[in-house]
């Protein structure tokens, strides 16, 4: 009974909010759907909101790392937002460091992180230097 998690687009950012306890097949579907949408939409950022997620085990953890790696290869940055403290504590004890995955405490900070990453790369936010 695998389900599809909706992927929203705001400007050049894709937003996914995981609201239900997903079985492994749905987790894999999300991974594939996101990769396809990144290419289709030429998005430059992916935000995955896990504030409603009660546990992240090795399977979901690996999905987050894989999505980050795939999007990077497709010219998009991924940021995981809203991780609950109990989830963070558990992940560390499980042995999953999620290295390579950017995180932010909430959606707002996540979006700012992506903006900065993009600006940094294109030099768009470079402050005009007062001479």
């Amino acid at each position, binding site marked *: 009974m695998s389900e599809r998690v909706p992927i929203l687009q705001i400007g050049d950012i894709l937003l996914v909010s995981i609201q239900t*306890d997903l*079985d492994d097949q749905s987790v894999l579907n999300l991974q594939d759907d996101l990769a396809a949408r990144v290419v289709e939409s030429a998005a430059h950022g992916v935000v995955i909101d896990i504030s409603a997620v*009660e546990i992240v085990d090795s399977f979901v953890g690996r999905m987050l790392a894989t999505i980050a790696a795939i999007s990077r290869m497709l010219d998009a940055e991924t940021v995981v937002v809203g991780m609950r403290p109990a989830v963070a504590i*558990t992940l560390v004890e*499980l042995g999953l460091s999620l290295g390579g995955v950017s995180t932010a405490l909430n959606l707002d900070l996540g979006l700012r992180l992506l903006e900065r990453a993009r600006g940094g790369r294109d030099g768009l936010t470079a402050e005009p230097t007062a001479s």
Partner: protein
Amino acid sequence: MTVEAGEGLLPIVANDDVVRARQLVRTLAQDCRLSLVEQTKLVTAASELARNTLVHGGGGTLRGELIRNGLRRGVQVVFRDSGPGIADLELALTDGWSSGTGMGLGLSGSRRLVDEFAIESEPGRGTTVTITKWAR
């Protein structure tokens, strides 16, 4: 040690059952009044072990119950399958070791997340993993 209400037996034969396993263990953890962090650790361990039962053990069962030892209350969950078993338990319990494409964190990681962890396995006969978490 006496068994209390709230027990449950769950077959683990499909992906959905791993989701149900998490739900059943969460309910027991809440009934036992484990702290939120302890609940999260126990449910995460159960998720790893239920997936192992399904993927490596070829399916099996989960039995969860509230237990009591004197004044201490706890949750005990038993995962059982009659799959291929594990030839080298020490190796299987090593961080990062997987016979497949997994990250090899399921067994070693879930052992760290609980208070008591016991594994019995015989090649060709199956695997039983028992985990316990006590309320503080």
